[in-house]
């Protein structure tokens, strides 16, 4: 962190796919951003979250897209979603016409299921108490038929989103992109191969790759150097300790 090593890193194929899918959202399309990360996972998921938010709001400015933000797992997600939003330049954008923040809607899986059929029933008011039926942007947006991109950032099980969005999104060609911890990526691989999950961001490396793709390197790229070095140290220590253990074990046997 004091002297960046600028270690090279590849941009993974799912990260490129996530970028292309968001870039392909048509003019006036609706982008749904669900922030369900927790405070412990901000370091891993934050870079990707900020990069996706920046990209989404760039689409709002360039192509007149609309953004719906919500949280359904825990309050921390709403706070961190707001934190990611603070990194976005909202100049010229109007709340209620270009983007809307529905806040924390308790219910988790029931909320994810409900937003597919009737968004206004699970979110009668937005974060600020305004009835959603009175928000100009949401007049014609209410179900999966009106969404063009589904994004979720989660530090728990990602199969909840696949379960509730998978069938409906697949039938209507709506891509699902999930930003997840590296530990849960192997669990997501079957869904990615089956096509139910369109793309994913693999924690910090996915976030760093996304930052490079949108041309705004930030926290992810900076963290990757330090994280790679820390992991190399961990591997070195494991090999060192195992070596000592093996030598002691073999000398004791003699």
């Amino acid at each position, binding site marked *: 962190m004091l002297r960046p090593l600028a270690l090279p890193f590849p941009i993974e194929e799912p990260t490129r796919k996530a970028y292309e899918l968001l870039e392909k959202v048509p003019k006036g399309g609706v982008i749904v951003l669900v922030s369900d990360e927790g405070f412990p996972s901000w370091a891993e998921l934050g870079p990707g979250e900020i990069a996706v938010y920046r990209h989404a709001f760039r689409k709002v400015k360039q192509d007149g897209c609309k953004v719906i933000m919500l949280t359904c797992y825990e309050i921390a997600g709403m706070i961190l979603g707001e934190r990611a939003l603070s990194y976005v330049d909202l100049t010229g954008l109007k709340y209620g016409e270009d983007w809307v923040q529905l806040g924390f809607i308790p219910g988790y899986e029931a909320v994810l*299921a409900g937003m597919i059929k009737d968004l206004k029933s699970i979110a009668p008011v937005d974060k600020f108490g305004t009835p959603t039926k009175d928000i100009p942007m949401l007049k014609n947006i209410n179900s999966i038929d009106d969404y063009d991109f589904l994004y979720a950032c989660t530090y728990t099980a990602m199969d909840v989103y696949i379960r509730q969005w998978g*069938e409906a999104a697949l039938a209507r060609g709506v891509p699902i992109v999930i930003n997840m911890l590296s530990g849960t990526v192997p669990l997501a691989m079957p869904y990615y191969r089956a*096509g*139910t999950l369109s793309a994913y961001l693999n924690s*910090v490396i996915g976030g760093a790759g996304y930052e490079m793709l949108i041309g705004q390197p930030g926290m992810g790229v900076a963290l990757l150097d330090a994280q790679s070095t820390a992991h190399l140290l961990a591997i070195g220590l494991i090999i060192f300790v195992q070596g000592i253990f093996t030598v002691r074990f073999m000398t004791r046997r003699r």
Partner: protein
Amino acid sequence: MEFDWGTAIEMSLVLMAWSLLYRDNILYRIAENLTVGWFMAMSLVVGLDILKSRVYTPLIIRGEWLSPTLIVTILGLLYLLRLLPETRWLARWPISFMAGVASAVAVKGVIYAQIIRLVTMKSWAVGGLESINNIIIATFTFTGLCYFIFTREHKGVLGALAGFGKYALMICFGWTAGTYLMSLISMSVGHMQTLMQVPGIYVSMLGVIILIIGIIYDRIKISKT
């Protein structure tokens, strides 16, 4: 440039929590209690806000009595009766309702997305490393499941499969521990980055000074006893 007090307080709390690595101390206990208290306060505020917007406003302000909100509110209030021994049994109704709804919502999505789509997936032999990957996944899954067959003794073919499954499970648990360690390292690296920048660097310097004073004080105390 305005001093970022929010980040300074955040990093102070991080360092106060990390001070446990040295020893239990009052700064750690302050950070611990502040965190618990803040979480509870935040949950209470958001909970009250949701009750106001989802229950009070529709029922009392708008007078929408004939709506599902009334039924859900009654179920929620029944849950509170768990606190009294005489009415504890009434709390089973909202618990059963929630368990039933949660199961129904989950099962509805499982059948297509998690069973049909995966079973009909045509990517077993895609060529190259992907096929080897699929074979490893299938072998580890099968042998791991063989390990958990307790109705027969692990002898012969089953014994060999279960033995291989035992090592497969050990590899998987080691991987789980490794990824958990990685996520903890990432969290620490994220905090370290903030501690190296303004205003975190000032907090770090102050933290180092307090640590040095603490070490000197402990040494003096030990030498006196």
